[in-house]
């Protein structure tokens, strides 16, 4: 059996998105900036996608800036806030310790250029606290950026509360909603979100398309010099097929959200119950406040890469925050941020479901995983020590 359980990494493109994209390659293939009919058709497709996405976000079409994905949108959001802040001598940014590297590395660079960054604790439950955001905000705070949902452990942050707080304090609020969009309700108006990043490939759209929502009234400096695309802020011919696919995928995801969430979160809970019963394993992050699809576990005494390879051989695609898979010596900064010791964080496993996963697939994971953990523990000197100590 083949089970794709790595939907937080990326998702399969839905038939709806694919069918929406195909004519953009062969019929509406024009350059939206062109004057002729073929170009105008592409421009219409682009406008329609922008309008539809804006509606789904409860934003205005002119507040949407298409990008190549989440990373670009995150970089841009920080730049926008720093540029606005600089005019008022505000150089302080509040964020959390477990943001995606698209934010964290951008903030590191900003620090080198004179910004001051406060990274808030996300506690052992993987949740930022509104009171701590409030306490961190200063006179010179130019931006609060807190991810909507964490990509490794899936915990949902108190976005509406932070939005309300920031609005009251007059501080711009950005959220990286890459993992949340299309999976949980997002409403930039009601949640007082000033800027938001999303990417299409996490909700069954294509890779290479995303957007930054930036509330009207916030000055947007040019991100990419070039042509007049994206109201002159980001030059370059638009990726029309991918943007059209993104709109179609988001529309579909939002339409089916309630129904999908009910089913997916039930499968996720089944997985959590079964996997947590493996001795010396545990679920990472708050059990309740999480995305419908993501469950992240640690198994003491083993290393995550071996786990992934054996699962892969059994037909199951998953991921891990172990050092071996992160390409560095340190395990995932997310798992360290929720207080896991290095040696435990190495043994992590992220299973992320989508609406396409079936109960049979989840049962297959539940059946396949425990013997694999046992097998790796059987050859682990760390496990031997743990057993002796216990």
């Amino acid at each position: 059996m083949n089970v794709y359980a790595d939907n937080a990494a990326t998702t399969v493109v839905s038939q709806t998105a694919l069918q929406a994209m195909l004519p953009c390659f062969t019929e509406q293939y024009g350059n939206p900036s062109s004057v002729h009919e073929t170009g105008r058709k592409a421009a219409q497709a682009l406008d329609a996608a922008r309008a539809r996405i804006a509606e789904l976000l409860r934003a205005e079409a002119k507040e949407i800036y298409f990008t190549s994905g989440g990373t670009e949108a995150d970089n841009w959001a920080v730049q926008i806030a720093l540029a606005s802040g600089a005019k008022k001598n505000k150089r302080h940014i509040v964020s959390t310790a477990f943001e995606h590297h698209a934010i964290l590395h951008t903030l590191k660079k900003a620090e080198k250029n004179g910004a001051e960054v406060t990274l808030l604790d996300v506690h052992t439950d993987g949740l930022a606290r509104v009171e701590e955001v409030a306490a961190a905000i200063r006179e010179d705070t130019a931006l609060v950026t807190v991810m909507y949902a964490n990509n490794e452990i899936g915990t949902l942050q108190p976005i509406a509360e932070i939005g309300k707080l920031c609005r009251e304090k007059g501080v711009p609020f950005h959220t990286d909603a890459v993992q949340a969009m299309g999976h949980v309700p997002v409403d930039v108006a009601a949640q007082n979100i000033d800027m938001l990043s999303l990417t299409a490939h996490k909700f069954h759209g294509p890779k290479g398309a995303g957007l930054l929502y930036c509330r009207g009234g916030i000055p947007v400096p040019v991100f990419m010099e070039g042509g007049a695309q994206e109201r002159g802020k980001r030059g370059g011919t638009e990726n029309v097929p991918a943007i059209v696919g993104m709109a179609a995928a988001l529309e579909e995801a939002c339409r089916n959200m309630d129904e999908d969430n009910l089913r997916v979160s039930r499968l996720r809970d089944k997985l959590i119950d079964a996997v947590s019963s493996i001795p010396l394993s545990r679920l990472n992050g708050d059990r309740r406040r999480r995305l419908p699809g993501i469950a992240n576990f640690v198994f003491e005494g083993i290393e995550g890469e071996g786990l992934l390879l054996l699962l892969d051989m059994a037909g199951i695609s998953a991921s891990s925050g172990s050092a071996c898979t992160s390409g560095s010596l340190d395990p995932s900064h997310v798992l360290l941020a929720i207080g896991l010791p290095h040696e435990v964080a190495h043994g992590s496993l992220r299973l992320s479901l989508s609406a396409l996963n079936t109960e049979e697939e989840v049962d297959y994971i539940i059946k396949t995983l425990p013997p694999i953990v046992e097998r790796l523990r059987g050859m682990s000197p760390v496990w031997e020590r743990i057993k002796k100590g216990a």
Partner: protein
Amino acid sequence: MAYSSAVMDHFANPRNVGKIDDADGIGEVGNAKCGDIMKIYLKIDDNKIQDVKFNTFGCGAAIATSSMATELIKGKTVEDALSLTNKAVIEALDGLPPQKIHCSVLAEEAVKAAIVDYYQKNGLEAPEGVKQCTSCCGDCTMH
């Protein structure tokens, strides 16, 4: 990142997994913080590696290099085993991805540590130039 089929074979079907209760030499290198620990047990008789077993906590390459290292020294003289290099382990596995080279270093060091332990237990002088793992994988020469 892709592993060679030899690495995948030694990861999926590791040779010589286990412990030797009355081992003549035991070597353990690496640390859990860095994500790799290798422990090698030797049974030595007549100056020959009569039996060898390993336990490893680590990634696929860590398990595969441990397995290959034990295969390469089994039945060899102590001196031959001592001259095992990480390069030989890599070659026998048809190569390793660059970021996994340190696993082969760890495997070499684990074998050496076990032999040094054997020398010490028997009151023998270890030949000069035998290096032992200093501590964490971060100290490995390959980093």
